[in-house]
């Protein structure tokens, strides 16, 4: 069953919105076919944040919510498998600039985490740090190095690493083990499943560049909050963008990538590419940088002899949102994000602004600390 609004001022009929899961599935299949076979493709609509799906003609209802969420999870798992089987995907997507910003994100996350742990440490307390989707463990290892210089704090810190990939977990564990923390618990599992079943509570939950893969992020945030200790914090960094939040932005990108007229007409026929939402200058800049990023990846793949012949798949849609929207989601999940309130909870710490936007005049990447509060 679909829903329809009345026509716009010019009398054009709005396009039908789908609510029936089977219809959505068929609609998504047609959508994916538009960019099928290209090295960079949109990927499924189920990648888009649930709050933006209506702009893509999919309405999340009480009835279809669990099915859509299941599908989004399945896509996430498939992505993981593709990446696991084709190492070039990650290396192509990690441009020099992306790598530099990601390293800077790690530095800021580690700064937050170290300050929090130092400020509540009494010299005896044991701490539990959980990292969701740690990959090769860069953030946890960097935190371990930071704690190494703080009395015997590292010897009392337990690390819990949760990732789909056993191979990456093994590497992360090996790297971390050299620093001899209190313990390392590396579990190959979906983050939501782990959070739903673990008996641990955590002083810190870390997540780097992961939440934009969670179309139903609020559920995950609530689960994280329930697993935090009283003064526990979630320290996350992520890539932000409004690109997936309106079809017109994606259409612009596909045009820039040089998609042929037939594919573009198909896209135009499926979605309303007018009435793009107004963005703040920072958000606009972030969205344009995201477009430019994918256009550059596309150009690189076509230009490089080592990658142009490969069948690697790169998907540009994700559950990206803006930093403002992310803060809103955190607050809806009852986290405290206000830096003044966080500083009050950790009075001896050196905590500055929050969120930290990583780039000047752009909302492309940020680090956010969120406290459980009461």
């Amino acid at each position, binding site marked *: 069953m679909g829903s329809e609004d009345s026509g716009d001022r010019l009398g054009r009929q709005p396009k039908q919105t789908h609510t029936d899961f089977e219809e959505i599935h068929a609609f998504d299949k047609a959508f994916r076919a538009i960019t099928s076979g290209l090295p960079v493709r949109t990927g499924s609509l189920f990648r888009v944040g649930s709050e933006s799906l209506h702009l893509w003609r999919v309405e999340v209802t009480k009835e279809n919510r669990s099915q859509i969420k299941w599908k989004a999870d399945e896509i996430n798992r498939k992505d993981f498998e593709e990446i696991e089987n084709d*190492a070039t995907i990650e*290396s192509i997507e990690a441009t*020099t*600039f992306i790598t*530099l910003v990601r*390293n*800077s994100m*790690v*530095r*800021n996350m*580690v*700064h937050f985490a170290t300050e929090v742990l130092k400020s509540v440490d009494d010299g005896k307390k044991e701490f539990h740090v959980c990292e969701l989707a740690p990959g*090769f463990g*860069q953030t946890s*290892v*960097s935190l371990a*190095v930071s704690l*190494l*210089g703080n009395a015997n704090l590292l010897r009392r810190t337990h690390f819990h690493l949760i990732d789909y990939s056993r191979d990456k977990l093994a*590497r992360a564990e*090996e*790297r*971390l083990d*050299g*620093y*001899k923390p209190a313990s390392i618990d590396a579990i190959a599992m979906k983050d939501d499943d782990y959070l739903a079943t673990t008996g641990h509570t955590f002083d810190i939950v870390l997540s780097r560049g992961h939440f934009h893969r969670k179309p139903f992020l609020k559920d995950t945030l609530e689960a994280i909050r329930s697993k935090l200790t009283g003064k526990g914090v979630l320290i996350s960094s992520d890539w932000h963008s409004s690109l997936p939040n309106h079809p017109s932005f994606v259409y612009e990108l596909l045009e820039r990538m040089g998609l042929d007229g037939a594919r573009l007409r198909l896209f135009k026929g499926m979605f309303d590419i007018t009435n793009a939402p107004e963005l703040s200058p920072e958000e606009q800049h972030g969205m344009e940088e995201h477009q430019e990023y994918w256009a550059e990846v596309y150009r690189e793949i076509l230009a*490089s002899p*080592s990658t142009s012949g490969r069948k690697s798949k790169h998907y540009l849609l994700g559950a990206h949102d803006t930093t403002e929207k992310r803060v809103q989601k955190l607050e809806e999940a009852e986290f405290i994000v206000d830096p003044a309130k966080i500083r009050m909870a950790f009075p001896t710490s*050196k905590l*500055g602004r929050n969120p*930290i*936007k*990583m*780039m*000047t*005049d*752009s909302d492309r990447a940020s680090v956010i600390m969120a406290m459980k509060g009461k």
Partner: protein
Amino acid sequence: MQPVNSIGDIDALDDIVRGLTAKLSYPMGSLLKIAGRYLHNYCIEITDDNRKLIEESSLTKYLEGWATAAKVTLDAIKKATREAGFPVDNSDLNEYVGKMTVEILLEMAKYDKTRVFRITDLGAGDGETTGAVLDALDNENADELIERCQFTLIEPSEENLWNAVNNLKKHRVSKEHKIDITTIGGTNHNFLRRMRSDECDVVISSAVFHHMILPTYLGTIEQSLAADGVLVVGDWYTTIFRHPAFVADILSQLGMDTRAYHQFQSLFDVCDGDEKVLPMQLGMNSDEIITDYRMLRYILAIGKEFQGIPPENRDEFLEGHCSFAEREQDLKDAGFTTDVKQLKEEHKGFAGMESNMRNIDPYGAARVFGVAKLPSKAGQVQRPTPGNPKGQAKLAV
């Protein structure tokens, strides 16, 4: 083989050795990339007459090697770093160079509220080391100090410099602060040669000094610094290239054919199994042995990765690494004070510091070290000269 010291003979020896390994997926490269202190083990004698030429030739070899590197090269190296079991990488070195630099700057700034700090980033690459300094300044809420920093980035690759400027322009602190950045294209050697005394307050460098095979550059840096100038250096330390016996073992495991392998062994009078006996004879400690073993795994992992990339993008494995103790001695010989107790007492920047050495690898392979000139010692230091390369112990007391 008798030691050689004429440039012609050294080049001939180098050509022979390079030729032996040229077909490997990860070739050895020039002997002149090895730290000068180890070259006598490779039958190369450094003299006053050939020192400058060796240094220049070494630089040329490094530049030639860097020119072949492409994204596929760097990706393969990144992957091999993980497989070799090194827990940290250059980004971690950058982080702690940034943190230590800011820790020192904050202390120095307490005593002089108007001083502008001239910071030189040697081998700046894409600007990540300077970016790490900006991160640390921001995390310390050092708004006022940010405006008092002038950065000079030295980098041989024009493309890297261009990227560095663009990357740093986008750094979040540049939204609220004017970041003063000057870029100079060129090698560290050329830049240092032009430097005058008291030209900067702080020199930072990350994962670069192991490309400088003779320690004379440290004397030049020391001279270019202000009277209380500071050097913060992050680097990788290994002695795996100290002796040809260790290199022979690498070559064998990379799949060198038997004939070439025996030629290499006979050139440097190496026997099978020497690599197992030498660590004890050389008095290597367990951390050094483990680090060298991981370095061997790292080189072999790169060799494996390089099999999948075009030969023209393959790097070469020899580099100018030394042990941390040797680097510390070079720094002392160049006139730097390295002892943290003395630094705490006599240098404002180190007053609150527990340790001026940050070991970020469990076995000491990656470290950040902060050293300084002490104003009280100004004029007392015998700097390295061609006739006295180490500038050894002729202090006026």
